[in-house]
């Protein structure tokens, strides 16, 4: 009993930094001081982000999608008159699900030899009222494909492009509900973020119209290690200066394995979150005294603190999780606010590093997803807990 108590005491003592950091909301607070490590040199940092951008989709995600596709497609072929004719692929809203789906489906389609009709969009139509018209144009039987009843696979790479949370914005979903079950000669593959999916289930019972749904499985440490191996080997990143804060359970594992197991835990097994946390954990250690050369080291992976958010900021961030990416005018429509108001909130959140802006499009910085999810859930927002 005494031994157990001492073990518990040691565990608490060793993990005190981690435990205490959970209550902090100061993003500037250094949770685990790493005095010997400094910021990356500019050229290394840009090389690192370039390599991260060029990483292929995680094999774990791709293989999981292909397996789910095989099963659902075979079931549809066997029972195409009355069986489910769609597969929903669900992922966290910060996962680039359209890219993973495209990578997964290209090889798979070669084998199936069934005509493909993809939704050839790279984003949401500019005018929300045009969503339904454009959907009809691209996916309607009476449109490009004629009225024939030949079998075909319809792919919607990102369902969030088909709606916007505003009065006219859900007409695209109404249209999809009408056509999904109408014609069993079509097999639908639809990818969606979990937050948007949950929302659609509340507002239009969309789940009832769809067949099987499949949630991308959480990635484990080993899968992340394999995925990020090209970056690690190319930049010769070292794992030998890690804090020994992983607990006694990992005693027999090497530092790199421990690191990736911890990374998988902290990121919730979401590839985009894991990648951001991995990049955030890389530091530079100077070797010689004249500060000319150094090595890349990793510190313990951690999800950064989320600064205190105002109610209006929470509404905007929820909207981003719902739609995954938004332009300023779409964000204004989704919130029912003036665009100037939204712009000021976007600037504030961008400065805090919570959202990112590429051109006119804003997205959530995936590194904040785990904490933001629990913050929103605690504040009555509908957040799916299926990926927990």
């Amino acid at each position, binding site marked *: 009993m005494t031994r157990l108590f001492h073990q518990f005491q040691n565990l608490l003592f060793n993990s005190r930094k981690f435990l205490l950091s959970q209550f902090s909301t100061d993003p500037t607070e250094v949770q685990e001081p790493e005095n010997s490590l400094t910021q990356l040199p500019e050229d290394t940092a840009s090389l690192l982000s370039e390599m991260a951008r060029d990483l292929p989709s995680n094999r774990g995600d791709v293989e999981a999608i292909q397996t789910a596709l095989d099963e659902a497609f075979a079931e549809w072929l066997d029972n195409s008159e009355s069986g489910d004719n769609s597969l929903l692929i669900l992922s966290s809203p910060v996962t680039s699900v359209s890219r993973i789906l495209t990578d997964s489906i290209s090889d798979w389609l070669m084998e199936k030899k069934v005509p493909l009709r993809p939704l050839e969009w790279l984003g949401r139509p500019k005018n929300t009222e045009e969503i339904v018209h454009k959907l009809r144009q691209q996916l309607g039987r009476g449109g490009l494909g004629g009225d024939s009843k030949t079998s075909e696979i319809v792919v919607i790479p990102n369902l969030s492009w088909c709606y916007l949370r505003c*009065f006219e*914005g859900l007409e695209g979903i109404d249209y999809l509900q009408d056509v999904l079950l109408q014609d069993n000669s079509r097999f639908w593959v639809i990818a969606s973020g979990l937050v948007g999916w949950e929302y659609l289930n*509340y507002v239009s019972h969309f789940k009832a119209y769809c067949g099987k749904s499949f949630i991308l499985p959480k990635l484990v440490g080993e899968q992340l290690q394999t995925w990020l191996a090209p970056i690690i080997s190319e930049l010769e990143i070292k794992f030998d200066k890690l804090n020994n804060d992983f607990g006694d359970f990992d005693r027999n594992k090497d530092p790199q394995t421990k690191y990736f197991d911890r990374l998988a835990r902290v990121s919730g097994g979401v590839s985009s979150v894991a990648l951001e946390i991995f990049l955030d954990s890389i530091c530079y250690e100077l070797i010689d005294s004249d500060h000319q050369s150094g090595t890349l080291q990793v510190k313990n992976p951690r999800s950064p603190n989320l600064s*205190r958010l105002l109610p209006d900021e929470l509404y905007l961030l929820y*909207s981003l999780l719902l739609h995954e990416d938004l332009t300023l005018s779409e964000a204004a429509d989704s919130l*029912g606010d003036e665009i100037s108001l939204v712009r000021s909130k976007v600037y504030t959140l961008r400065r805090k590093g919570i959202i990112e802006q590429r051109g006119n499009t804003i997205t959530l910085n995936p590194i904040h997803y785990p904490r933001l999810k629990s913050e929103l859930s605690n504040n*009555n927002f509908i957040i799916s807990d299926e990926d927990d």
Partner: protein
Amino acid sequence: MVIAQSTGNAAKETAEKTQELIAKITTGKIAQAFIAVIFAYILLKTVDKLVIWLSEQVAKEWRLQIKQFLPFMRMMVLTITTIFLMNLFLNLSRDNLVAVTGTVAVALGFAFKDYVSSIIAGIIGLFEAPYRVGDRIQIEDFYGEVVSYGLRGIRLKTPEDNIVTIPHNKIWTDAVSNSNMGELEAQVITNFYFAHSVDVDLVKKILYRIAYTSKYTHLKLPILVIMEEKRWGSLFQLKSYPLDARDEFIYKTDLTTRAKRAFAKYNLAYPIYFNQENDFGD
């Protein structure tokens, strides 16, 4: 005769005891009492600020639970201070208590009848809970959020941002309408008025969609549109809940603004006839 004499003796004895007690009041005791009162006041203010601050820091779902802790904290501070003061001046022995309570009861009974009634109602209110801090209530013509639960009464913050103080003893005689009873959610009813000829299905569809697409709507709670025929036209009521009861008025405005935009798009007819003497509630 004997009874009258013994009553007279008892009154005389009580008066003597009271005199004796008053004679024991020294400058030192007054100073102690003064310090105790100041300390209690500072403690009350600190507890007020601390509990309110804490309730605003935590997740919304815990906000009201923490706020509702405030009256109990205040009551505890006041009770301890009162006992301390009574002990200081009245030396709370059994005899002293009997002597003083008789005198005090008579004085309070006449001079502070309503005050005492409010204090007792406040203590009972802590347990019966017709309202708690954070609740949105209506008493008489006043509607608003309970922002403070004091010894004598509560303070309501109205939509116009006025603070209205209402004594607790209203709970003896007046109806208290509580919208959320300690919960974070409070139903909002938004009225919409149309001519008899309006397309009912279209209006219902618009109203549901407006509610489902508002950023404030609590989607886990039911949304309902009900309709009633009136002499002047058709009354539609959209019943829904905001994520946070505090957003009640801004939520209603959001629903109305976006609904009116949609009504204009479909050119829906509003009631033409409106008799000033009969409002829309008829």
